[in-house]
C-alpha cells in the first residue's frame, strides 16, 4: 500500500481510486495466491509438519502409523549405515565443493577476457554442468571409468595400469567427486557475472600505484567477488548434500557401502523398504544438518565476505 498511497497524496481523485483499488486488491490478491497457498498448505508446509510427525511413528504404508516416540532416532544412533552415509556425504561435500569452486573461479578468470572465440570456449566449458545431473551423462561417466574404459586406455598409453575405478572404495568416491568437479560451469557463469561487476577504475588505480597482477587478483578481485564466493559456497554445499541420481546410476552405494550417500540411504529406507517413519527421521536430520551447515557458513561469512561495495 505504501507506494500507491504515497503517490496518491498528490491528488484527491487519484487518492480515492487508489484506496478503492487497494481494498479491492486485498480480495483479488488471494484469488491470485490460491494455487500457491494450496501448494503451501498441502505440499510444502503441511508436508514438513507431516514429515516431523512421521519421524516419530513406525509407518510402513500398509498398517496405520503408530506413535513410537524417539525410537527411530534411537535406532538411527545405533545404525552403522546411517553413520556411514553421514561420513561419506561429509567427505564428498568437503572435497567436491571447494574443488568445484576453485575450478569455477580459475576458469572464470581465464574466460573473462574478451578474445576471439571466447563465446565458444565458454559454451563448451559450461555445457557439462547442464548434462551432469542426468542419467544419460551419469551412464557416460560410468563407462568412462570402466575397467576397460577410455580413461584406463589413455592411462595405459603412458604405461600406467589403471585401477578398477568403481570396484575400489577409495577410487569409487573419487569418480563421483570428479563428476561433480566436471560440472563447475554454472558456478563459473555466476563468477563471470560477478567479475563484470567489478568497476574497472579499481584495477586501473591499483596498476598506477604499481600493484602486480597477482596483487590485484588477491587484493581487489577476490575481495570484490567474496559475496559471490559465499553464495556459490552456500548453494553448492546444500546441493551436494542432496546428490542422488549420479550415485544411484554409477555406484548404487557400492562397493561395500563406500558411496552410500545420505539421500541414497533415505531413498532405500523410504522407497525400497517402505520404512516411511525411519526415512522421515532421516529427512528431519538432513534438514537439521543442512540448516546447521548453512548457519555455520553464514557465521564465518562475517570474517571473509566483503559487503563494503
Amino acid at each position, binding site marked *: 500500500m505504501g507506494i500507491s498511497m504515497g503517490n496518491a497524496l498528490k491528488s484527491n481523485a487519484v487518492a480515492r481510486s487508489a484506496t478503492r483499488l487497494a481494498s479491492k486488491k486485498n480480495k483479488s490478491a488471494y484469488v491470485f495466491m490460491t494455487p500457491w497457498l494450496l501448494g503451501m498448505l498441502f505440499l510444502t508446509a503441511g508436508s514438513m509438519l507431516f514429515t516431523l510427525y512421521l519421524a516419530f511413528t513406525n509407518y510402513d504404508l500398509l498398517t496405520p502409523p503408530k506413535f513410537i516416540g524417539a525410537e527411530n532416532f534411537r535406532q538411527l544412533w545405533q545404525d552403522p549405515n546411517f553413520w556411514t552415509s553421514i561420513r561419506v556425504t561429509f567427505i564428498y561435500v568437503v572435497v567436491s565443493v571447494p574443488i568445484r569452486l576453485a575450478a569455477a573461479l580459475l576458469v572464470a578468470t581465464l574466460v573473462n577476457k574478451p578474445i576471439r572465440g571466447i563465446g565458444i570456449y565458454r559454451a563448451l566449458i559450461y555445457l557439462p554442468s547442464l548434462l551432469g545431473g542426468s542419467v544419460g551423462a551419469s551412464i557416460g561417466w560410468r*563407462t568412462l571409468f570402466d575397467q576397460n574404459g577410455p580413461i584406463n586406455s589413455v592411462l595405459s598409453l603412458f604405461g600406467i595400469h589403471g585401477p578398477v575405478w568403481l570396484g575400489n572404495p577409495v577410487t569409487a568416491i573419487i569418480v563421483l567427486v570428479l563428476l561433480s568437479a566436471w560440472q563447475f560451469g554454472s558456478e563459473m557463469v555466476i563468477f563471470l557475472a560477478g567479475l563484470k561487476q567489478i568497476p574497472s577504475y579499481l584495477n586501473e588505480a591499483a596498476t598506477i600505484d604499481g600493484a602486480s597482477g597477482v596483487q590485484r587478483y588477491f587484493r581487489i578481485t577476490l575481495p570484490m567477488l567474496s559475496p559471490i564466493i559465499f553464495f556459490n559456497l552456500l548453494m553448492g554445499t546444500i546441493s551436494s548434500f542432496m546428490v542422488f541420481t549420479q550415485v544411484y546410476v554409477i555406484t548404487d552405494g557400492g562397493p561395500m557401502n563406500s558411496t552410500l550417500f545420505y539421500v541414497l540411504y533415505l531413498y532405500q529406507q523410504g522407497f525400497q523398504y517402505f520404512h516411511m517413519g525411519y526415512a522421515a527421521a532421516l529427512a528431519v536430520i538432513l534438514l537439521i544438518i543442512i540448516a546447521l551447515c548453512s548457519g555455520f557458513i553464514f557465521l564465518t561469512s562475517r570474517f571473509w565476505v566483503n559487503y563494503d561495495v
Partner: protein
Amino acid sequence: MPSTSKAGLRLAMRHVILIVVSFLMIYPILWMFFASFKPDDQIFSTSNLFPTTWTFAHYIDGITGKSGTNFGPMFLHSLEISVVVVIGSLFSSALTGFAFGRLEFTARRFLFGFMLATMMLPAQVVLIPQYIIFHRLSLINTFVPLMLPSFLGTTPFFIYLMVQFVRGIPKDLDEAAAIDGCSTYRLFVSVILPLTRPALITIAIFAFYWTWNDFFSQTIYLNNPNLFTVPIGLNMFMDNMGNSQWGDLFAMSIVSVIPVLIIFIFFQRYLVEGIATQGLKG
C-alpha cells in the same frame, strides 16, 4: 616490437590453454557420441575416439525396441510430463509472482518470507509425505504426482524470479491503468503479463530442463514399465542389458540429452541469465 610479440605469445598461450580445457570438458560427451556409432566389438577394444566403421543400428534398435527396451514411448512420456510441468510452472509462477510483486494483502510479508525459506528446503523432506498423499489418493503409477505440484507453485525459484521481474516494471503503468478503471485482473492480463515475457521464457526453459532430467521423483512414482520415462528406462536398461548392448545404451543416452542441447543452443542467453542473476542451478 618485443612487447607486441610478447603480447601475441600470451594470447596464443591463452588460446592453447582454453582449447585444452574445452576439449577435456567435452571429451566425455564426444566419447559417448562417437561410441554410439561404433559396432559393439569396437567400443571398448580401441582407444580411437572416432569409429572406423559407422553404424546407425544402435539408434534404430533403441527407438524401435529391438534391444529389449522400447524407448519410443518413454520419450513421449518424458515429453508429455515436461510440457505439462512447463505449463503448470508458468501458470502458478505468473499468478503468485504478480500477487507478491504488485498486490498488497494481509500476511504478504510473512508468506513471502516463508516462500524464500523454502528455497533452501531439501526436496526429500517433503517427498515422503507427498508420496504418502498420492499413494492414499491411488495416484501412484500415474503422471499426476509429477505434474500437479507445478500448478501449485512448488518451485520457489520460479516465483522469486517472477516477483523480481514484476517489481522491476514501472509502477506508473499500474496507476495509469487504475485511473482508466482497469481491474486487477485486467492489469495482470493486459499490462503486466505481456511485459514479463523474458521471465516466463526463463521459467519455461528451466521447468522443462529440470523435469526432463529429473530421476528421483519419476523413479518413485512410476514403477509400471508401460509408464516409464527416459531416465528410468535408461537406468533399467543399463542394469538389465547384456555385455553386447553398450552401443544401444549410448545411443539412447545421446538421444536423451538432445532436448537439453537444443535448449542450450537456442536459449543460451536465457539459461545464462537465469543462472547468473538468480543463481538457478544449471
